[in-house]
């Protein structure tokens, strides 16, 4: 009995002791504080509302709104929700609901596909109810797992059952575990913003040129601010958001910012996403001469030497007029370049892609006017601007900006002389991508917008400006002096500036040399007189 008692006592000590050894062991292993969540101050898995089975996106939103009561109403007031922006300068109604571009052209009748990137659920046609709170998609921006995906074609919903995505690919997309994802929500990250903004135009890096998946975890050379092992900025670090309204706009960009660096708490300081909002207007402490450059040259002009330099190509041109050609087998075909980029697709036409692209440069004062549906256009060798940027050396509010200029050839109505919005996507008997019939596809897209269409189709050259502002290189990789101050300058063709070593003007050079010679002569004569006079004394 005593032996048995002793045996149990020994084991009891062991049981009590081993975890202690374990704990000590792990403490010794790491000499560290207990693990803790770092991306949120709340462990959402502990909330009862999020412990029940959440079957759909709106289910998740209802649960979120039970605590975050004002969140949906805040989102409802933003351009992320309405895809609509009224330009106060010219009263143009912009936003994806209204504009055309020279990528996939427009959302008209393509809603369920485009709205895979809407911060909402159920925008499948133009009758979407923008007032319903549970239609707001919290997870699109607050997922931290990276597993929340909204495939094209589901009107902004995630998959609720296994589906083939993309259709015809043979790849089965499993529905995400919404409960698990909701339990892990946190602040926005480069990945959440990037899940849409990296893939604008229908693929990785297609649209912007300075935003693509390489920016999810970039190194310092790609982006000095977002460098994942350095400053590690998220998008929200600069696009400092209040009440869910994200500052910064491509429809009305801040081309010149005369404010000093922002001071916390001070109101009315303007756009927090400009370079000057942190760096002020005289950022070059060691080389003050460069501050004079910064009076006329946007920071990005020198500090973003090239775009699409993270290994992801961007589309530089898109020719819709060649779409419709099928392969020898009579089926849709694609052609790829040596690097595997698709350069021809039966559904879409020809593409030119670029990597490590030097921007083009333009005077820009932030004013942009769009060519909207119904605006008259003329077919000619000169490209029709999808957006006209304003700026000049003389208006006092322009800077020289780097631009990606997307060039395209896209369908238009040669009788009404307007650009058109075709119904492209969809597994129906109208969408161009399946049926390859422009007339039918355009008639449907235009009818949806209550816009006239003559039934005739032609193609017109277009171009679209995209100011470049991301992919900021470290200062040692900025554009060097000699890249502009040379005959083959990056800024050649820019009017209204004099660049030594580039802007050779005979009379001005002669004047300069004469001034230098006169100065030298003056010094020599003055010196000679002083020598003569001192000898006389």
């Amino acid at each position, binding site marked *: 009995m005593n032996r048995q008692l002793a*045996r*149990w006592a020994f*084991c009891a000590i*062991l*049981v009590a*002791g*081993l*975890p202690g*050894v*374990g*704990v000590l*062991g*792990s403490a010794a*292993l*790491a*000499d*560290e*504080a*207990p*693990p803790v*969540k*770092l*991306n949120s101050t709340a462990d959402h898995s502990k909330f009862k509302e999020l412990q029940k089975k959440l079957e759909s996106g709106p289910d998740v939103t209802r649960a979120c709104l039970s605590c975050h009561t004002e969140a949906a109403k805040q989102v409802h007031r933003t351009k992320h929700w309405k895809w609509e922006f009224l330009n106060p300068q010219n009263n143009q109604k912009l936003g994806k609901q209204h504009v055309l571009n020279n990528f996939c052209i427009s959302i008209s009748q393509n809603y369920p596909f485009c709205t895979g990137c809407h911060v909402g659920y159920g925008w499948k046609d133009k009758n979407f109810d923008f007032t319903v709170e549970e239609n707001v998609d919290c997870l699109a921006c607050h997922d931290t*797992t*990276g*597993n929340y995906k909204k495939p094209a074609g589901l009107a902004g919903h995630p998959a609720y059952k296994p589906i083939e995505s993309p259709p015809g690919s043979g790849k089965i997309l499993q529905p995400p575990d919404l409960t698990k994802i909701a339990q*892990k929500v946190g602040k926005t*990250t480069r*990945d959440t913003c990037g899940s849409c903004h990296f893939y604008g135009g229908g693929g990785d890096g297609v649209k912007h040129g300075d935003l693509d998946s*390489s920016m999810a*975890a970039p*190194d*310092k050379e790609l982006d000095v601010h977002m*460098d*994942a*092992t*350095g400053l*590690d900025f998220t998008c929200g670090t600069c696009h400092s958001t209040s009440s869910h309204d994200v500052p910064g706009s491509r429809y009305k960009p801040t081309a010149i910012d005369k404010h000093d660096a922002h001071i916390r708490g001070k109101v009315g300081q303007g756009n927090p996403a400009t370079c000057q909002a942190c760096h002020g207007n005289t950022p070059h402490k060691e080389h003050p001469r460069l501050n004079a450059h910064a009076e006329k040259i946007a920071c990005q002009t020198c500090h973003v030497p090239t775009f699409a330099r993270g*290994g992801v190509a961007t589309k530089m041109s898109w020719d819709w007029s060649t779409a419709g050609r099928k392969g020898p087998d009579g089926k849709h075909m694609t052609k790829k370049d040596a690097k595997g980029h698709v350069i021809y697709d039966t559904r879409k036409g020809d593409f030119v892609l670029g990597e490590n692209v030097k921007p083009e440069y333009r005077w820009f004062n932030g004013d942009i006017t769009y060519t909207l549906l119904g605006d008259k256009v003329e077919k000619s060798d000169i490209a029709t601007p999808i957006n006209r940027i304003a700026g000049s050396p003389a208006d006092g509010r322009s800077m020289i900006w780097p631009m990606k200029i997307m060039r395209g050839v896209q369908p238009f109505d040669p009788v009404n002389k307007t650009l058109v919005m075709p119904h492209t996507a969809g597994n129906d008997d109208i969408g161009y991508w399946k049926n390859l019939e422009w007339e039918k596809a355009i008639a449907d897209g235009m009818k949806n917008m209550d816009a006239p269409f003559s039934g005739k189709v032609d193609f017109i050259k277009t171009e679209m400006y995209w100011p470049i502002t991301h992919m900021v290189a470290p200062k040692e990789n900025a554009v060097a002096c000699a890249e502009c101050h040379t005959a083959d300058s990056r800024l050649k063709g820019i009017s209204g500036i004099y660049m030594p070593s580039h802007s050779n003007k005979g009379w001005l050079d002669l004047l300069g040399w004469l001034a230098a010679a006169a100065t030298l002569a003056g010094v020599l004569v003055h010196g000679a007189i002083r020598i003569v006079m001192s000898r006389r004394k």
Partner: protein
Amino acid sequence: MTFARTLTAAAALALLGVSFSAQAYDGDWKRGRVYYRSVCTSCHTSQSGHAFAPNEKTKAEWAAYLQADKHAKGKDTVKQYISKQYRASIKAQNKAAEKFADTPDQELFEDIKAFVTKGAKDGDSPAGCS
């Protein structure tokens, strides 16, 4: 016999205690991504010219690999290259090691595990080297 049984039960309970502390932490795949690419990929590329992408293994293969904890065919351990000691030794040349110099070993291990599981061939987001 009874003693052996009791001892086994005690040991199992103790081990459960240890593993529980590890399970309580929820790996941050984004942090794992940075360490994997900046330290593991970077070293493999420079030393052997071949970096292992997460999508070269299935989730089960990654789990088995990490469980076995054998690096370079058993010459050393995986955990060794995640340890604070290792990070301290390379932090002058490696920014990720410097950035995560004070991150607890077990946390960083779970972060990497979360990343390779997510990026595995059959993971939620199969991931290449870059």
